[in-house]
């Protein structure tokens, strides 16, 4: 995550050099493209509302809320997929997109929450507070939103430097957010859990990959530690 340490001067230098190095390419070309792609589902909600691209159907409030919710889930999965994918492929440039994906997760969760707050509940404070306190699946979703807000607020390079080692500890909450998100989805469906099950499976694979990775590394380190005294 050194991206921000590139100075304007260095980029200009790279551009004038004509052969853009990978990081600059990522920053100047791929990042804007990926950003627009990430924004597309939200734009589609707006154009569908005006029936330019599609329709929101008989219950538009529910449709908007569901779309933002499902994209929030997809983005937490995408964010969590970055590290395992980078380790598998060796494509280290992937990590340059991790913050963007994380912030889009926050964006879609926030939009999902605002749709519920404004369009569904109509800003009726008593009903909102009652729902957050009394409906477990809403409580879970709300906790995930609070965690995400903390992560989004500390996502800048400056905050990362200031928090030092505590930054990583705090940002491990991403795993908890993934679990809370799937749990929230699972609890709100009436009966057919086949779709939540898909997300639960993906999440299990993504978190499982990390467990396996750390186990393998522990073993390697231990083996290395054992081999040293034998050699001496």
């Amino acid at each position: 995550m050194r991206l921000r340490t590139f100075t304007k001067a260095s980029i200009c230098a790279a551009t004038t050099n004509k052969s853009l190095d990978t990081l600059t390419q990522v920053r100047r070309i791929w990042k804007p493209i990926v950003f627009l792609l990430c924004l597309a589902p939200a734009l589609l909600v707006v154009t569908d509302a005006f029936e330019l691209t599609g329709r929101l159907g008989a219950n538009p409030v529910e449709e908007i809320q569901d779309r933002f919710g499902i994209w929030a889930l997809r983005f937490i999965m995408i964010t969590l997929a970055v590290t395992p994918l980078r380790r598998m492929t060796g494509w280290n440039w992937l990590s340059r997109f991790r913050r963007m994906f994380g912030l889009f997760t926050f964006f879609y969760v926030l939009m999902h929450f605002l749709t519920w707050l404004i369009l569904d509940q109509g800003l009726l404070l008593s009903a909102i507070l009652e729902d957050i306190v009394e409906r477990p699946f809403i409580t879970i979703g709300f906790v995930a939103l609070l965690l995400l807000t903390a992560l989004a607020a500390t996502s800048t390079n400056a905050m990362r430097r200031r928090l030092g080692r505590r930054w990583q500890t705090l940002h491990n909450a991403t795993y908890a957010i993934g679990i809370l998100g799937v749990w929230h989805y699972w609890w709100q469906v009436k009966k057919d859990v086949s779709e939540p099950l898909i997300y639960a499976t993906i999440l299990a694979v993504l978190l499982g990959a990390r467990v396996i990775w750390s186990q393998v590394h522990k073993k390697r380190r231990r083996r290395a530690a054992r081999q040293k005294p034998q050699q001496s």
Partner: protein
Amino acid sequence: MLIKKPADIRPSEITSEQNYLDRRTFMRVGALVGGSILAPSAISAVVPDRRGTKLTGVSKSSFSTDEAPNSFEDITTYNNYYEFGTGKSDPHENAQNFDPLPWTIKVEGHAEKTGTFDFEDFIKPFDLEERIYRMRCVEAWSMVIPWVGISLAEVVKHFKPTSQAKYVAFETLNDRKRMPGIRRGSLDWPYREGLTIAEATNPLPILAVGLYGQVLPNQNGAPIRLVVPWKYGFKGIKGIVRMRFTDKQPLTSWNMAQAREYGFYANVNPNVDHPRWSQARERRIGSGLFASKQPTLMFNGYGDEVAHLYKGLDLRRNY
């Protein structure tokens, strides 16, 4: 109070292309409504599309609400019918090629008249009435729907239940070839519902066979479904193939699936929340993006007609 002012959306405007009935379909309407018997062999060669067929001889009902009905499109593209999938638009998408006819209904149990009846014969003795009812889904959305149907009370009386008959149980068609949602095993098929005899002989419930003056669309439960306006929508069992008079409270599908969340009675009640969401307010479909939810009424506003059925019953425990 006769309700039907010129309807906001006339059926003829909604299904323009379907109104040009071909001769075969027209003949079939005659068979359905007029009661002239058309030998099944005469129509089996070509399967006519009965969708959009107009029903005739439909009288108005004083039980109808004067609230504006939802559009034909809303009613037919947004509903639950798990036999055709669990998504709200699944029934519309997956029931298009479902041809309900020929259809038989088996009547059995504690009644003097029992047997298996062809759909047309089953409904023939009864008057077709338009009943514009509020429909409140357990998922906290609602519609106003202009059904066409026959009085369930009349149907029950017609089969002469014996003194042992305390309940009426219904079952939906369970055909995994024609109903793609059944393969997914989201519920324990066949779909089952039931009412007490007192509920079934109340004047409000109908067996609906039409919508907006036309034959009932497949996705809404063709050819025949139950409508009980003071209960949550899931009590309105669709595609009925069996009707049984029983002495014991029958099993009902959602109660079997999640007894803590869905009871046998399932009366609309703003004071008893679903364990996972509030039932105090409801979203009226078609009210627009920025409309607020409206308060849910006790017994969905049909308390004058049905509250007496539950005197002395703890509605908090018998949800």
